[in-house]
């Protein structure tokens, strides 16, 4: 069975600095999707970024980018120019691309604090 591990329960970053959140996963599959979600204090889950495993190019969305290392099964999220509004829980998630599978597997989350 697939697993997703976020080994950093909490991290802090100074405003305007860059921070990287780690995520590793375990799978025997070659095709899958990876996601990062943000959960601010409002509790709403917000999709930050998506990566398809078959794509070598790392996904980027404005100040958010990923470092996808397929062989190492690593999927880290880099937040550049951190802002106070980036303070939230961040969850990494995995979804198989195998036909007939529907489940998503989430990590336990990393709480990011942004210091003014």
């Amino acid at each position, binding site marked *: 069975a697939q697993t997703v591990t976020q080994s950093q329960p909490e991290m802090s970053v100074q405003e305007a600095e860059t921070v990287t959140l780690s995520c590793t996963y375990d799978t025997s599959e070659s095709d899958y999707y990876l996601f990062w979600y943000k959960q601010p204090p409002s*509790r*709403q*889950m917000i999709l930050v970024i*998506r990566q398809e495993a078959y794509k070598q190019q790392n996904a980027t969305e404005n100040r958010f980018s990923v470092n996808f290392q397929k062989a190492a099964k690593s999927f880290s999220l880099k937040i550049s120019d951190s802002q106070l509004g980036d303070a939230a829980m961040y969850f990494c998630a995995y979804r198989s691309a195998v036909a007939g599978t529907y489940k998503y597997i989430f990590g*336990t989350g990393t709480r990011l604090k942004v210091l003014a």
Partner: protein
Amino acid sequence: DAGITQSPRHKVTETGTPVTLRCHQTENHRYMYWYRQDPGHGLRLIHYSYGVKDTDKGEVSDGYSVSRSKTEDFLLTLESATSSQTSVYFCAIRAGGTYEQYFGPGTRLTVT
């Protein structure tokens, strides 16, 4: 926000009472999911649906049942609530070919 609403948003109930949570979507998505979120566990899948009347169990389905009689509504029922079911419950949909999930605002359930 993918047009997903959950009701109620907050509920306090007593042990042993039945509880039904509702998820409603307005964009005709085929796939819908129920998760619970607890500290230290992230999101754990309870049940999911891949079409009207088509549902299946997730990793923490004991004590929960679901129903989907029409595309837009996915109901989660706790037949006899227990204190271990105190949690925040999220509904989600899967958006088409991108496999992205979008979530409702969540329901905080407290079982006393």
